[in-house]
């Protein structure tokens, strides 16, 4: 089982991030039946805003502890992206709620391009170094010689921990609170929900805000792990997270989480083993192909996903 544990760790890391982003897709789809194509770019903006916050704080308070720095950046970026997501809904989607299905998708593509353009204008087209604020020292999970060891670091472990706890938190929010009940009611039937005194627009705004905040956090964690951020970093995670959402059953929160983790693992194990089996000919350069093949296979053969479409079972 060569690098199995290592692949598992890698898969868990990217999978938990996919899951976090997938939640945003799935919640919006569950309520509005639209694919928020710009969601991946909200992640990107989150990472870049976080980067700017860190730079400003570092310049103003050179003695600020790194953990606090990261925390502050995360909070501000999350708030920023919550608002951004709400603005996107307001500007690009609200008018199109009763339009043909493809209209909000096309307008979302436009928003995605626009956000990338803005990012290029503000942060240039070049990848920006993202400071590694958590200790980089390797943490040995599995001791052994070079090919059998499994190593991780504080950033990765924090990422996985934070992502998993946020997911549990969101599940509790949706299943145990008044807000969650209202959200499920709107997903089930907006007209009836509004007759019961729920304002669907408020719920929709909240949904976008939560999704935006989670995406921002995912963006910052992604940038922390890779050590860089750039205007195009949202595209692939966005598509993969959407794949995860569909894989788990779109509209289904637990499905999005499961789908995210599953996709991360498939990717890591698939590329790892295929790469090894073909002497690196079909290795990590095909990693993204895996995600796309999973996406296509799921959409074609099981569009209702592994756990089935939920949140609401409206046809």
């Amino acid at each position, binding site marked *: 089982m060569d690098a199995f544990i290592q692949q598992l760790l890698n898969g868990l890391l990217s999978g938990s991030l996919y899951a976090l982003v997938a939640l945003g897709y799935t919640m919006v789809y569950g309520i509005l039946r639209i694919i928020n194509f710009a969601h991946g770019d909200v992640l990107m903006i989150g990472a870049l805003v976080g980067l700017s916050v860190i730079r400003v704080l570092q310049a103003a308070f050179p003695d600020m502890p790194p953990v606090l720095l990261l925390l502050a950046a995360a909070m501000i970026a999350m708030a920023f992206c919550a608002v951004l997501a709400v603005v996107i809904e307001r500007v690009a989607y609200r008018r199109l709620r009763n339009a043909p299905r493809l209209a909000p998708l*096309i307008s979302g*593509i*436009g928003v995605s*391009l*626009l956000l990338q353009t803005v990012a*290029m*204008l503000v942060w240039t087209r070049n990848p920006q170094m993202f400071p590694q604020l958590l200790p980089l020292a390797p943490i040995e999970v599995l001791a052994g010689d070079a090919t059998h060891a499994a190593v991780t670091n504080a950033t990765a472990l924090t990422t996985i921990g934070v992502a998993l706890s946020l997911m549990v938190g969101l599940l509790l929010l949706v299943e145990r609170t008044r807000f969650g009940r209202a959200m499920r009611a709107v997903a089930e039937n907006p007209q009836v929900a509004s007759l019961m005194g729920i304002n669907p627009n408020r719920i929709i705004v909240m949904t976008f805000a939560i999704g935006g905040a989670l995406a921002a956090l995912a963006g910052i964690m992604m940038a922390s792990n890779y050590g860089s951020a750039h205007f195009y970093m949202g*595209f692939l995670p966005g598509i993969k997270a959407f794949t995860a959402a569909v894989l788990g059953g779109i509209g289904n929160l637990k499905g999005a989480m499961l789908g995210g983790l599953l996709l991360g693992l498939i990717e890591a194990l698939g590329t790892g083993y295929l790469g090894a089996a073909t002497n690196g000919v079909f290795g990590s350069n095909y990693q993204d192909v895996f995600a796309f*093949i999973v996406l296509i296979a799921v959409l074609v053969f099981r569009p209702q996903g592994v756990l089935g479409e939920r949140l609401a079972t409206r046809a």
Partner: protein
Amino acid sequence: MSLATAVSPSSKRASLGLLLFALALVLAPWIVGHAGGNTWVRTLDFALLYIMLALGLNIVVGYAGLLDMGFIAFYAVGAYLAALLSSPHLLQQFPALLALLPEGMHTSIWLILPLAALLAAGFGVILGAPTLRLRGDYLAIVTLGFGEIIRILLRNLDRPVNLTNGPKGIAQVDPVTLLGVNLGRTQELFGLRLPSVYLYYYLFAALVVLILFACIRLERSRIGRAWMAIREDEEAAQAMGLNTLRLKLLAFAIGAAFGGISGALFASFQGFVSPESFTLNESIAVLAMVVLGGMGHIPGVILGCVLLAALPEALRASMGPLQQALFGQVLVDPEIIRQLFYGLALILAMLYRPAGLWPSRTGGAP
């Protein structure tokens, strides 16, 4: 009944429009070339390639109502086919082939174009067959996935066998030779000195006209009506006996064929292809042209291409020097401005003109 809108296919106006279009098409390079030189004529050449692409995508999106976000893949297929068949790359990789063709392949454009159309159509059918049952938004994402897979394959198929030369791309693609005339060089024809970009312009223009006629004829045929019926209401179309799956495949294949032709021309024109010409952003650019101009309406689609292909280029050419003059440096990369246009075009079109700037009088929204 006063609210009802009458639709009459006033053919007189249509033929007048066609005449004006033809005139503009013939004169455009001279006007533009006079004003801005060969670089601008080159921009026109690209605009014509985009028109071919957009007319192809219009069959898929505009007529049949299928949102294809990986359309650029068919362009790539055509381009790489042309590159492989008319560059030394394959011969360098396979000595056996070189022994067979010591003079190089130099495949004729007359062979490359139909092959590109066929191959791209074949890809269209292969991609479409498993996916065309999906509902619209899922189809969009799946086609996006296919488009990306093709690009990643082009990037990586330099191993185990070097087929595509990977990210470096394939260079030394032959220029088009037409009836013994090499379009890659300046030629004296009928007493006129025609630089290469002019020669290509007229070749592209001829093909645009050909594709245009094909589109117009298809639009007004039994097949075109069936596509639009599917776009309007797939279930009702089925109830009228239409084999919707087959008709959608047909739309995919024909649209792809136009994309393939356009790609083959692109490769010969550039003399070079690489995977980076076939990104998702290019698919979206073509989509933006179709959407902005008017889905399903040919004049609108052409307008969209001219606006989104030529205008940003013109801006690119003028904005750089303008900024230089005003601020002493180039503050905003013109490439960014181009993308800004596309993004805004998509959003504003959906919000305010879902049927496009120049919609057909009976045409539909997405």
